[in-house]
């Protein structure tokens, strides 16, 4: 039952995110837009490139979708509204997100096209840049909660949100989350102007529909992660828990979608350079800061 509920909410969220994206990109708010777009894609041919690595080509979109869903599976929408409340939830999120990169590398190699191939390997580099910035802020959050269980992490924010106690970690994680779902300005693997769509360039019809859906679910999962780890998850007055979670998640997603439109795409080398020379030291500072506050409180 919970599983069903969560999945429904997840895909509903993905639909709303798609509406938001349509709004930011065309300026027109069309609630039917994603529906028609999906039907149109399903109604079109989807011809496979002539010499694909068929296995990888077909698996990649599904794997992307699966890993996005799995990432959301350990994140609570409400006090008891979580598919799997693992003892290592915060770590499981990372585990699931790591396979986003695997899916993109497969999607890049599979279709036998140079644009896609470059795009796929590009994302591997991007992962090297952002993965530490996903793990380390979560570490700090887990330190405060004294647990890796996501529900406990949310409860630990009853007093004050993590976003306020550790703003540094919040900003880093937010940016890293944008990099995970390769939204602008981190859209190196899909760069329309540079690689004609990159990993998406070779997918069409129903397969492209799956890729797009997976992308949207991924955005929702990451926004949900930001909400759970830093914005106090379901905590909030008056409204029921799931409502708060959805609200916060949608706001985060909207911010992610719009922010990138006002800056140019980052250069791969800059993502790497800033991720390691700037991001990781700051993340360490964040961890130290949290550690110090914890020690002081325990005294």
């Amino acid at each position, binding site marked *: 039952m919970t599983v069903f509920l969560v999945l429904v909410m997840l895909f509903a969220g993905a639909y709303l995110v798609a509406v938001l994206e349509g709004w930011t990109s065309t300026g027109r708010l069309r609630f039917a837009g994603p529906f028609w777009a999906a039907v149109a894609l399903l109604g079109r041919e989807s011809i496979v490139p002539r*010499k694909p*690595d068929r*296995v*990888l080509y077909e698996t990649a979109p599904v794997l992307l979708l699966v890993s996005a869903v799995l990432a959301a599976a350990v994140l609570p929408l409400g006090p008891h509204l979580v598919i799997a409340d*693992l*003892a*290592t939830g915060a*770590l*499981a999120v*990372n*585990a699931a997100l*790591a*396979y986003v*990169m*695997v899916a993109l*590398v*497969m999607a890049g*190699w599979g279709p*036998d096209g140079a644009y896609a191939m470059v795009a796929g*390997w590009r994302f*591997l580099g991007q*992962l*090297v840049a952002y*993965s530490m910035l996903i793990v380390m802020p979560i570490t700090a959050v887990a330190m405060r909660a004294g*647990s*890796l*269980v996501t529900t406990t992490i949310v409860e630990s924010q009853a007093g004050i949100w993590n976003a306020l106690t550790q703003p540094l970690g919040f900003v880093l994680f937010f940016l890293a989350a944008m990099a995970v779902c390769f939204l602008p300005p981190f859209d190196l693997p899909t760069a329309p102007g540079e690689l004609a769509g990159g990993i998406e360039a070779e997918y069409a019809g129903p397969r492209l529909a799956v890729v797009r859906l997976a992308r949207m679910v991924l955005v929702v999962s990451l926004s949900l992660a930001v909400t759970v780890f830093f914005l106090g998850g379901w905590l909030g007055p008056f409204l029921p828990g799931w409502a708060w979670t959805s609200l916060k998640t949608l706001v985060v997603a909207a911010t992610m979608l719009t922010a990138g439109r006002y800056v140019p795409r980052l250069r791969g080398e800059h993502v790497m350079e800033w991720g390691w020379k700037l991001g990781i030291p700051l993340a360490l500072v964040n961890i130290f800061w949290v550690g110090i506050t914890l020690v002081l409180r325990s005294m």
Partner: protein
Amino acid sequence: MAQAFFTGFFGLAAIWFGVVVFRTSSMVRSALALLFSQAAIGAMFLAMQTEFLGVLQIMMMATEMAIMAIFMVMYMMDPGGLGGMDMTHQKRLSIAAGIFGGAAAVAVSLLGGWGTVGPSTMPEAQVAALGEELLGRSMLVFETAGITILTAMIAATAVAIERRR
């Protein structure tokens, strides 16, 4: 029983992917096959109620094997494997060694008297206890491992980068 079943299932998956690693001639495929083999091993951990290690294994291997894949593409002649060429040598010896080693290990594991099976602990308790272990008694071991890998990384990079003259 269910536990044995799942462990066996993921074990078979790991073995099958492990075989695929050396049977395909596409380098990217074999790297990904290794990835899924290792992920299946992680799943075995989960089936054996060792949650933390399982999740950790599944997480770490993704990046490790993807990097493996890109090095394959860099250093192989035919990464797409369209040539279908044979990249093996001393086949007979290695098959013999493989079979012998495997068989020996199987024999040991079957014949060895393993004593009684201990009780399992709850995942939460496990994670906490492991944390205590890591930052308590085995702190030194853990830190040494950390320093070692750091050193190795620096050394490897130093070896790999171009000599500027």
